[in-house]
């Protein structure tokens, strides 16, 4: 392998190394949580720097490693940076939650790092088999993290639901993958795409291929938690330890979109006319159901779970815009850019929101009922203000990140000359308006409710504070100066097409 190839997989290796290091530290210095945390933070910062360097080094070009199974292009770099940021923030938010509950840090960190490496691999895979492996590498640690609070009934309940349904969908996905593989005769994505292109719409799809498409659609729909494959989400999110919920709401979701980019946009693009109607319907269902049910939730984690379902719907609009646009057009690219931009913006604001919940739950026994937030604006003005900021961003109020994300998705949708996509855009904004209700409800509880009886001051740890500041800065900066992120997303999208 050339030095370039090593550099290309450098970030991935770094995260693997961090995962191993955490295990080693656990054995060599058991119980040294702060050490592990420190090492992880430093390591992740290093990995981010490395990724940045790699991205700069390769620029717009691409490098294939492992005989083309792994590719380092702008998309890989974009996703790597995003995943590493998610990992960093999750690590920052976790100790304050884990420590009071006597949950070991090292094991947690290594599991998380493995999951992140899976996500990163997913974003770089150009081989169906690698895609599957990466997916499993992503989700298996995820199940474990969900059930990480072993003695907590809810955590394990969430985990087993997540696990059973996840495995079920993995099997479905795998079956679809196998069928496509059998049809295309290769696991290499470019070759698959080439074979499918040669169909050229002239012959009808074989039953096996059609079945394969259906299975793959259902499989990824499950992974991104699109309605009606979303059932696991609320239970898994509610049950998991809060920092894990934060992670689950962004990491696996964005990774699943990475999977969609590599599989559907790269490999199955020639068949996009076949699958686009399903994306449109899924998008519409997902955002609408997510928001409607979120309206009625009283548990903040569950509410945010449904809200994350709704956001999946919005992201899917970007995908639909891509898929509905004529091949090779600018519009096609805009859809993907929107998808990527939305993922990035969503990650920061959603993690931020969960981080506030985490910070409140530093004291054990604090539930995740909405009443937890009562009078937060008085008890901890800064924390309240940050939560308000994240909520505003999630609502899509300018000039915050979430606003641009929605605007981008809508730009992409209205560019497609199709009543369906215009309809989807309108549905998006109607949903955004409805969603404002439950986001604002939290603000109401924080600022406008009767003063809460919990008068104990909220103490926010240094790490959590740093993470919150990072999320907030990202949310504001992406809002005020979205230019660089847009440019990066454009480059990433260009790499894919």
């Amino acid at each position, binding site marked *: 392998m050339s030095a370039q190839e090593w550099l290309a997989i450098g970030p991935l290796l770094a995260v693997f190394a961090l995962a191993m290091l955490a295990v080693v530290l656990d054995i060599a210095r058991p119980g040294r949580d702060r050490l592990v945390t420190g090492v992880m933070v430093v390591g992740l910062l290093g990995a981010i720097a490395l990724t940045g360097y790699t991205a700069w080094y390769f620029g717009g070009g691409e490098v294939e490693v492992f005989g083309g199974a792994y590719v380092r292009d702008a998309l890989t770099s974009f996703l790597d940076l995003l995943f590493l940021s998610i990992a960093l923030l999750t690590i920052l938010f976790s100790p304050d939650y884990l420590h009071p509950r006597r949950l070991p840090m090292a094991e947690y960190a290594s599991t998380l790092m493995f999951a992140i490496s899976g996500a990163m691999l997913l974003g770089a895979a150009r081989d169906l088999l690698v895609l599957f492996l990466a997916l499993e590498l992503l989700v298996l640690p995820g199940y474990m993290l969900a059930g990480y609070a072993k003695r907590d009934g809810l955590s394990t309940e969430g985990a087993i639901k997540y696990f059973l349904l996840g495995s079920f969908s993995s099997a479905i996905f795998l079956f679809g993958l196998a069928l496509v593989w059998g049809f295309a005769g290769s696991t290499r994505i470019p070759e698959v795409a080439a074979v499918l292109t040669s169909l050229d719409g002239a012959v009808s799809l074989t039953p096996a291929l059609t079945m394969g498409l259906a299975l793959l659609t259902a499989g990824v729909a499950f992974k991104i938690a699109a309605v009606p494959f979303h059932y696991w989400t609320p239970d898994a999110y509610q049950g998991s330890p809060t920092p894990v919920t934060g992670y689950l709401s962004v990491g696996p979701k964005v990774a699943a979109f990475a999977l969609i980019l590599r599989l559907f946009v790269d490999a199955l693009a020639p068949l996009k006319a076949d699958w686009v109607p399903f994306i449109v319907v899924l998008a519409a269902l997902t955002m609408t159901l997510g928001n409607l049910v979120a309206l009625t939730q009283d548990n903040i984690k569950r509410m945010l779970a449904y809200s994350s379902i709704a956001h999946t719907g919005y992201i899917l609009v970007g995908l639909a815009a891509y898929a509905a646009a004529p091949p090779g057009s600018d519009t096609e690219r805009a859809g993907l850019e929107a998808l990527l931009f939305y993922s990035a913006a969503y990650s920061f604001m959603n993690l931020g929101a969960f981080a506030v919940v985490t910070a409140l739950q530093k004291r054990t026994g604090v539930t995740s009922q909405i009443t937890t937030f009562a009078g937060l604006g008085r008890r901890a003005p800064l924390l309240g203000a940050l939560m308000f900021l994240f909520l505003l961003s999630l609502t899509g109020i300018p000039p915050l990140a979430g606003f641009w994300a929605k605007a981008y998705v809508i730009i992409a949708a209205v560019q497609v000359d199709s009543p369906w996509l215009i309809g989807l855009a309108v549905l998006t904004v109607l949903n955004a308006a409805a969603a404002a209700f439950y986001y*604002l409800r939290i603000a109401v509880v924080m600022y406008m409710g009767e003063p809460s009886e919990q008068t104990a001051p909220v103490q926010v740890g240094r790490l959590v504070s740093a993470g919150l500041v990072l999320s907030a800065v990202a949310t504001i900066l992406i809002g005020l100066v979205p230019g660089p992120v847009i*440019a990066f997303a454009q480059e990433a999208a260009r790499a894919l097409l």
Partner: protein
Amino acid sequence: MTELPILTLVTFSPLIGALLIAFIPRHNVQLVRWAALATALVSFALSLALLPAFDARQAGFQYVEQLDWIPAFGIQYKLGIDGISLVLVVLTTTLSWISILASFGPIKDRVKEFMISFLILEVGMIGVFTALDLFLFYIFFEVVLVPMYLIIGIWGGANRIYATIKFVLYTLAGSLLMLVAILATAFAFQAGHGGDWAGAFDYEQLRQFGFDITLQLFAFGAFFLAFAIKVPMFPFHTWLPDAHVEAPTAGSVILAGVLLKLGGYGFIRFAVGMFPDAAQSYAPWIIGLSLIAIIYGAIVALVQPDMKKLIAYSSVSHMGFVTLGIFIFQQQGMEGAILQMVNHGIITGALFLCVGVLYERTHDRTIAKMGGLAARTPVYAAIFGFFMLASIGLPGLAGFVGEFLVFVGTFAVSPVAAFSATIVMTVGAAYLMWMYQRLIFGEVSDFLKGLGHHLTDMTPTELVTLTPLVALTVIFGLFPGLVLELIHVPVDGILLQFRDATAGVAP
């Protein structure tokens, strides 16, 4: 840019103040208050500084500042004003400092947060009037929502949460659709320029573009919804009474004084400016809705038991003149509409201040409980009466000229519409005089007697808030030319373009 970016200064000076206030310890309430007032006065002074160098006879925008913001979509940071913007900016800065001063007494809890919210609100409002990039405009338009949401929701009355959420959701639903329309027009522009995004959100360029009629009809519809909710036009008005009733005094003042004008301004500048053909085809409907609003609002106001609700419905009626004046597409009508916006801002703002003064003492707004205030608080009675008369449209005071210009314009286009609209001259006088008679005249009510010496006449602070408005009401009543001269050229421009654009379209 070598010269001073004065518009940016005007727009963002309250934000700077807000940031500074954020660092003042919250227990130092007096300092927070005075700092907020000083900030608002600075932006007021800055906005006045725009006047001397402003050339009222020059067409187009002045003080233009232009920077690329998001080149990928041609989104710019572009500010500029014409006469219409200028008068509304000055109105905003004026009412802002008055509102802040008026909050000194009533707002006792979380003063720091209140002042910060209020100053951010001011940024949003000024920004709406100065933005020349559609995206930037939209951002300011939305930014306004958040502080207003907090102001009603935190410092409001008993049913504040229902009111504030209704306000936000209602407004948001409309404005988000407008976002879709903005993006769609920008894309149409981009497609029409060979895929080049440059200028796709630039108001001045979009105005020249000439969108095809299908897009116009759709986009105008979306813009209409956003602005009609903001104005608010019948039947999108029901958030207003709730919001007014629950909002604290300063909130009501700004809500009536400036926020409603965002809708009227949006209609003139964007909806009509960019989609003249669609405006033409929708105009009969909008005129119809305006007439309904004018009469309906006035009649419903007749039977309101709550002072604020009464004034809220009167706002629906008065703002109906604004939309009526705009959509008859006639010089006097449109100039009258703009003048009416300014005057309504001053007068209704003042009326809400008056209600606030009384509420401070009685903690009640039920008209039936009051009576005989003239005997106990003569100065208050006089000032309240003054604004009541101004609101009725007494000649010589500000309310008259705008209203009459709208009437004249309407009559020239459709005498029938003018006939129906003038009914309100009577009904409008009836509800206000009824309220005034019940509050001010007659014997002192038992409820007020029960208050004893708490029922004092106006304090010096309250006088300071209301006196400038009295002066403005008289000045604009006697010399409406001060405003009309400023808006004449831009209105001419809009109507000229409108006529050019619709010349080829069969009615």
